[in-house]
């Protein structure tokens, strides 16, 4: 698996109740790229993410992860290589202690206990939370929960990291720590978010989705210069790009 590529072609999906969520989305992601998926609430970001690990099956179109086209047979391999971090860490941390939770994935891969332990400790060390290993998840702070949720995915050593709103509900310092962490990862990354300032820091490429369709796909800086496009997609320029109110009024 040297090519951690993701190819999505003409993806269409409507929910069973008839709500059309995706109207033909296509993109291609090369190894090591980090892609931000931005768009208004209900644009289809989460629906798209749910396709990337095979939870939802497209009505039309195809998905390829690495060397595998997404089919029922390849699902097992795909789930092993795509690590998914959910928006609410409480959904992700379901085991009684932090250690058990991070060990859940590797145990399912059928590793021997020593290897499981090594992987768990490595993942916990990466996100700097090894001191929490015997704590129950409900006793952690929001930032700690998020870090552990990421560790629980890292322990499976995925090639591709998929994250839904990783910086939501974090205090500024925890957010900054998370951004530094994400920057240090060499995985192929796909991040759905409203935090455009984080996108500036972490993702070199941005995909804008509006009403289930791709309205822009390009280098982050370029996409964020297009004010009209952002406006149309219910977005705004990242605060860092907008003029500073103090300096502007002084000038």
């Amino acid at each position: 698996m040297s090519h951690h590529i993701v190819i999505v072609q003409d993806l269409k999906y409507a929910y069973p109740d008839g709500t059309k969520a995706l109207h033909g989305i296509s993109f291609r992601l090369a190894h090591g790229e980090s892609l931000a998926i931005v768009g208004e609430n209900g644009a289809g970001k989460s629906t798209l993410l749910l396709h990337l690990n095979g939870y939802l099956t497209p009505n039309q179109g195809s998905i390829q992860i690495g060397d595998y086209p997404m089919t029922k047979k390849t699902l097992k391999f795909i789930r092993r290589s795509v690590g998914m971090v959910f928006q609410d860490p409480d959904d992700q941390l379901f085991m009684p202690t932090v250690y058990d939770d991070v060990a859940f994935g590797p145990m399912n891969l059928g590793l021997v206990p020593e290897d499981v332990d090594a992987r768990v400790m490595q993942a916990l060390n990466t996100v700097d939370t090894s001191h929490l290993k015997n704590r129950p998840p409900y006793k952690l702070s929001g930032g700690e929960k998020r870090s552990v949720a990421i560790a629980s995915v890292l322990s499976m050593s995925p090639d591709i990291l998929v994250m839904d709103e990783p910086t939501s509900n974090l205090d500024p310092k925890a957010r900054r720590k998370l951004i530094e962490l994400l920057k240090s990862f060499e995985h192929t990354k796909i991040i759905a978010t409203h935090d455009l300032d984080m996108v500036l820091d972490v993702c070199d490429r941005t995909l804008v989705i509006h009403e289930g369709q791709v309205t822009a796909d390009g280098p982050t800086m370029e996409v964020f210069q297009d004010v009209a496009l952002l406006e149309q997609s219910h977005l705004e320029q990242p605060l860092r790009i907008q003029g500073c109110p103090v300096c502007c009024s002084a000038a």
Partner: protein
Amino acid sequence: MAKIESAFFDIGYMDTLAAQDTFIHRLDPRAKLVTTLVFVVTVVSFDRYAISAFIPFFIYPIVLIAGSNLPLPFLLKKLLLVAPFALLVGIFNPFFDREIILKLGALGISGGWVSFFSIMIRFVLSVGAALILIATTGFNAVCLALDRMGTPRVFTIQLLFMYRYLYVLVEEALRMARARALRSLNGEGMGLKVFSFLVGNLLLRTLDRAQRIHLAMFCRGFDGEIRLVRPIRFSVLDFAYVAGWTVFFILLRLINFPQFLGKWITGLIS
């Protein structure tokens, strides 16, 4: 309102207690579980008018509470919380069983009252022992012990999940209740009808969450079986702990020590 919240956070306090490090805390959870079971079965097996025979059984909780550094007032409060259930079980005995079987001076006590007190003592002993087990072992370790002793996985996993999401669920319910309380003036909107909406909403949210958790499990290779790594070792000390208490309980079951002692003392006097 504040009462529910504080009562709830007491559950978390049990975990804090269980995180201590004493001789009793260090014992294998299985040893403590088996001992508790033997204790409860022995206590329950007495005939319905037994009262004096229970007195020496209090040695067990006293030793454990002292040895594992548990706060007695906290445990008593927890006991009081469940006491209504036991009261309900026993309260009708005095009405149905009016035969006088005991005389304290001029006062005749009916069999109903004796069996009622017997039930209450059993309740204090057995529920107390269960509370002490959780407070010295922790809920998760008790589940692990059950699992290792052959309880079906489905059952222990259910318990673990229940305990994990109890916190999430209660917090969610509290948030909803708070939101309602803040917007209902003069008791308007606090009725049963709104309450039923609240409960229904909570159920739907719970279903949604269950689906997301299931998804999270699938994403990490869940195939229907949950595997737990947690090496626990049953040492000679654990064995001695179980054996010691078991012999003690059986002895107490066979010989009524207070009666024995009483006879012996009256024998000395006369």
